[in-house]
């Protein structure tokens, strides 16, 4: 019996030491930029914040303008009125959205100091996502920005997203201001948490 107990103990110790060795090989220091890149690449950020362009293979994200939002030179005409249940119109660049809230343009998330997030801090970014308010205390962030989804990120992951956004090339692009809703289609903007 004593021999069996010793054998079990020996196996456990050896297994634990291998586990620790495995952790030491695969863990490595935490890299928030790498984590942020992974999150941005898998959470749909490029879908709306990187303008699409037409290629010979069809529409594709224009990575030379990665995450720079709606191109300022693309001045959008008045949006078509919604018809019945078809409430939303989307620009071909996938960066402008017209709905009951008016017209929203996706933001420049690059670190350009004048037109992007270059002057922001991790705190203002996190508070923006958590509250759904610009800079955490301004106007509401408009649809279709999925604040109700992204506000569930942990603080660490939001900080990682911000760290990655601050590391990408800065693109000077002044995204136009949102447009108010046309009276006939006006509706209450969904509030965070409602």
């Amino acid at each position, binding site marked *: 019996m004593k021999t069996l107990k010793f054998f079990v103990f020996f196996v456990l110790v050896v297994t634990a030491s291998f586990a620790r060795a495995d952790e030491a090989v695969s863990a490595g220091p935490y890299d928030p930029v790498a984590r942020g890149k992974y999150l941005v690449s898998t959470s749909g950020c490029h879908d709306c914040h990187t303008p699409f362009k037409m290629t010979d293979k069809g529409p594709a994200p224009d990575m030379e303008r990665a995450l720079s939002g709606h191109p300022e030179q693309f001045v959008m005409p008045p949006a078509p009125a919604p018809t019945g249940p078809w409430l939303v119109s989307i620009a071909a660049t996938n960066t402008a959205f017209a709905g009951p809230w*008016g017209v929203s343009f996706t933001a420049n998330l690059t670190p350009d100091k004048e037109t992007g997030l270059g002057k*922001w*801090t991790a705190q203002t970014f996190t508070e923006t996502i958590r509250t759904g*308010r610009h800079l*955490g*205390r301004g*106007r509401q962030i408009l649809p279709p920005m999925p604040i109700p989804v992204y506000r569930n990120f942990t603080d660490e992951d939001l900080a990682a997203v911000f760290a990655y956004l601050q590391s990408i090339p800065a693109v000077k692009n002044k995204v136009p*201001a949102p447009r108010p809703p046309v009276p006939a289609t006006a509706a209450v903007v969904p509030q965070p*948490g409602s």
Partner: protein
Amino acid sequence: MFHRFHICLLTLTLAVACYSPRLLAQDTRGLPMHLGDTGLYVGSSLSQVNPDVLPFSPQYALWSDGAAKRRWIWLPPGTSIDASSPDAWDFPIGTKLWKEFAHGRALETRYLERAADGAWRFGSYVWSADGKDAVLAPAEGIRELAAPNSPDASYTIPSEEDCRACHEGAPVPVLGFSALQLSPDRDPLAPHADRQTNAVDLRSLTSRGLIRNLPPELLAHPPRIAGDPTERAALGYLHGNCGNCHNNEGPLAVLDMTLAQRVAAPSASNAVLSSIVGVQSQFRSPDAPAAEARIAPGHQDASVLALRMNSRDPLQQMPPLGTSAVDAEAVALLSRWIEGLNK
């Protein structure tokens, strides 16, 4: 197997729960469910304010769509406020503040308390129509409460996030209770000025030992915003209504625009002026897209700050929350000030 001690303890607990239903009534934020349990009133009166609670009236009041407001503070016995940092007072653990909002009748009382761990807790209590109770609102607030005497017949209870948006933009979450706001040298032109009976100020707080380490200079020469009477009132209004978010210390320092006065910095007014007068704004008003400066001297209709104050379009209004009606008196004051610049 129950010991007799356990049976006695269980019985006692059940008795307390049955006969004192409000004793255990707290929400997950640790706030009492009823305003009457916060210590503002004597017993369950909801009308007779506790004599240990101190009324106060900031000289530059926050615009709340014309609501009549009363404010109080309570400090635990034997404690005092450390005012050694004149623009960021350190309030003792257990400090409580209340602010009542009324349109015809009391609608809401906001509550702020400093918990044992030093953090501040925020809550709003909604009054019943008969005035017999005020119950803690949910953390997400209440969007449209029926309020016949309010500007648009409805009233909004802010969410806790809304509370923190303003209160956590300032150096200290306590707003309106500061050296400038409680200065005995009150501004006669401050819009919506009111003063509660027996309201405390800097001198009475000092003489009662309720603040300590206040620089003597601030008692000898009470804080006063520099400038002619109109500029003093305009800058004071901006301090009280905008400076809690727009300052150089909080999260919005990234905007390089301060509207906050600082009694410890004699040049604070200059810092405000130099950050807005003739300074390019990033914002363009859809109503006046040619307006480019935050303040265009002599031209209030070309001043983005004034345009945004005069709007309640959710995409451009300033402040962005807490008000749904333009403060016409304040807009007129700011306009007079802007038109008088450079003259």
